[in-house]
């Protein structure tokens, strides 16, 4: 009994810390819609540290990997990174590794919070590391879908197999908008992908804190009536398949910074993951 008394203060303190958001969460940012760092390092829950608290569920047994695992195989791959600057974005703490097409994925509860109107401005960042493709498969793999399955609404982020050792990353806004990050992914290092979208048909794409694509005159996308779920590494139906690779921090903002300030914003996000500040 004495031992329990001795341990009680420590248990209480550790419980409080367990409930606290991580030090750089966006819980106080009113425009932060979703903040899932995926770095808990244990269990089958993926916490959302935004004010919305949208807990995700790890399904099918994906692996929780220490952040150092993101460096596996670096010395053995042939790198051809565009932009030519040698960049990557470390995984902080732990991350989730999915083996494609085995039912491993993360699902969030169906919610109207993700029901944006067809021209709603928003931004997101997401840190991904690809597994080199071993399947001779021409279908696209779904990394994230913010939609209701095959109903063709919301949007999806997919990997398009262009070569057994290469992938293109694309984002698809139904009914017909497809934008590509303008280079193939040929390495297994983690990179931070970002998207900025205003309400006037402009969409900019970012890679490791750099703007790599500017697009204008983009039409509205199809809204999901009645709310939609955000899922990761989950097939959205039809020909799209599940993605293989590692997934780190994800943040969505329900608003955008001015386009002129977007490069600074995404560079700051990249620097945060590189230990360069918040």
């Amino acid at each position: 009994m004495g031992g329990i008394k001795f341990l009680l203060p420590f248990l209480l303190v550790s419980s409080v810390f367990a409930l606290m958001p991580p030090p750089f969460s966006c819980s106080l940012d009113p425009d932060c819609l979703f903040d899932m760092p995926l770095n808990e390092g244990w269990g089958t829950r993926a916490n959302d540290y935004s004010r919305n608290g949208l807990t995700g569920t790890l399904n099918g047994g994906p692996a929780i990997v220490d952040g150092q695992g993101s460096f596996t195989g670096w010395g053995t791959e042939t790198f051809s990174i565009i932009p030519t600057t040698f960049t990557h974005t470390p995984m902080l703490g732990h991350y989730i590794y999915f083996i494609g097409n085995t039912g491993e994925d993360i699902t969030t509860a169906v919610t109207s919070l993700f029901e944006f109107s067809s021209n709603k401005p928003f931004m997101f960042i997401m840190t991904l590391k690809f597994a080199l493709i071993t399947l001779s498969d021409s279908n696209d793999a779904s990394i994230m879908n913010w939609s209701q399955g095959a109903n063709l609404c919301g949007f999806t982020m997919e990997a398009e197999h262009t070569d057994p050792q290469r992938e293109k990353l694309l984002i698809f806004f139904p009914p017909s908008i497809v934008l590509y990050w303008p280079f193939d992914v040929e390495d297994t290092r983690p990179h931070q992908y970002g998207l900025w979208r205003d309400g006037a048909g402009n969409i900019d794409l970012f890679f490791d804190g750099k703007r790599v694509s500017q697009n204008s005159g983009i039409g509205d996308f199809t809204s999901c009536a009645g709310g939609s779920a955000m899922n990761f590494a989950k097939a959205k139906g039809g020909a799209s398949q599940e993605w293989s690779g590692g997934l780190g921090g994800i943040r969505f903002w329900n608003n955008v910074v001015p386009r002129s300030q977007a490069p600074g914003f995404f560079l700051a996000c990249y620097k945060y993951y590189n230990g360069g500040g918040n």
Partner: protein
Amino acid sequence: MRYFWFFLIPSFLFADTYIFRVQVDQTTPKSSVDSFFSTKGRKDESQPFYGTYVLQQSDTNYVLVKITPKDDSEEVLIKNLYSLPNAVLWAQISIAGQGEPQFVIDNRAKFPVDTDYSVVVASK
């Protein structure tokens, strides 16, 4: 002598994870495969990779069983599955330490399955 305990760690802690493609039909429906395996295998609450999963893809011909044996008897169970006509080894995967999963055996292309997990179909 102080490190002697290391050699007492059970071998299952280093067990690989096996994924079998099991054929389902009228006599062996998905539900019976699920109930047979759901109580077996290692369960590690901190590492979801070490769990037993009967994957519910929409394929009506096959089901994938992902299992990490927890002891020697389940190693035998898995070896017996190799010889069953309705089961083939789809993949054998290991993770070392807290690293990424690595395929020891990869028969995914050889034994294709429906990969649309977005729709759960009732058992036959």
